[in-house]
């Protein structure tokens, strides 16, 4: 299968096979007007199988969530057909509207419009706690 190389855009590579769609949804790529390709189960020497997402013409998407959902993935920023930047996403300091607090005593359980926000409290153990009640996300 051939998918054209990007001139300008983002390639999210080394996505754990099966997570491509989840990342597509979390990054709200359905709202983007330009071309987006999801490649599922691509062959990978390192991983066996992997997913890849290619986004044409957009370089400034907030990719913070990647570090939480799939820390092994890599991001390549392409400008004028050349690789201008490559990095592994870091764990985001804050996750907004991604995780749901399950503590029945938390204000988020009754305050309907409130956005669920989690903050990173321990990088090593990848611990996120609810901003409001400080419960650990499990």
């Amino acid at each position: 299968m051939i998918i054209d190389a990007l001139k300008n855009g983002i390639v999210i590579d080394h996505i754990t096979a099966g997570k491509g769609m989840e990342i597509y949804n979390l990054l709200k790529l359905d709202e983007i007007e330009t071309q987006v390709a999801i490649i599922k189960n691509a062959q990978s020497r390192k991983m066996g199988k992997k997913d890849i997402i290619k986004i044409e013409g957009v370089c400034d998407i907030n990719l913070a969530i990647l570090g939480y959902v799939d820390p092994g993935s890599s991001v390549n920023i392409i400008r004028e057909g050349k690789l201008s930047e490559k990095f592994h996403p870091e764990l985001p300091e804050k996750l907004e509207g991604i995780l749901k607090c399950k503590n029945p005593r938390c204000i988020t359980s009754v305050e309907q419009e409130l956005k669920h926000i989690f903050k990173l409290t321990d990088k090593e153990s990848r611990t996120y706690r609810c901003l409001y009640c400080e419960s650990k996300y499990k």
Partner: protein
Amino acid sequence: MRSLIDILDLTTEEIDGLIETAADIAANPAKYAEVCKGKKLATLFFEPSTRTRLSFEAAMYELGGNVLGFSEPGGSSTAKGESVSDTVRTVSCYADIIAMRHPKEGAPLVASMKASVPIINAGDGGHNHPTQTLTDLFTIMNEKGRFDNLTVGLCGDLKFGRTVHSLIGALSRYANVHFVLISPNELMLPEYMKSEVLEKKGLSYEETTDLEAVMPKLDILYMTRVQRERFFNEADYIRLKDSYILTTKKLENAKQDLTIMHPLPRVNEISVEVDDDPRACYFKQVLNGKYIRMALIMKLLGLKAEV
């Protein structure tokens, strides 16, 4: 604009400043009698708490201010389904500062994000109760004259006891504090408090179920009530509520300058015979609570006494 949601929102220097002001208020109440003249405190108590509400109200009256509010959600628009956000936005139009208690954890933080006046967390479920911790710190300073080099026994419900968690957090910022955690196995300090606070900060602590065995080493004994409202299961509450009862007999081996504290209300965990012991400081704590709340209201409103 500042709010107080968590005791750790305050630096140790700010806590020192509040304690200094509170001590001056206690010594010279007349100097502060009109500091809050023309100001209004709203006490929004979505969960009943006579003690804390009265303390805030007395504090504001003694500063020459006025008080409005409600003491249970039935008397508020919350009963009609209004959100915390909308309630505090509305009350911000009427009051200069808000003291709020709510059964849901994090509610005062939400309030502080929406209100246009300072919010004081007067207790949010089993989560935080920073003015109780300020009260405890003021009492410790009055009785011991220091926050460092202390052996602090915490006894009773260490699992759900928010006052205990906050006090550990606050004291963890001082040097050479040794915590003795005394509780039944079912009500031990939660694992995260040990791993994320005590161990992370390299603090020394020990756990035991035997109060009398550790009594001789304690400088402070902080007793807590097993709270019925924190249990989902009545049977568990009944089984554990009488785990520790402090009596004069149990105090026989205690230090002569031990400070016995309790956030109150007590049920039966401190026998009334202990009240006459000069080491019992829990009613002093109540008075200290009013003074430190006065100092806090002044700080958050940016007011100072005229000299």
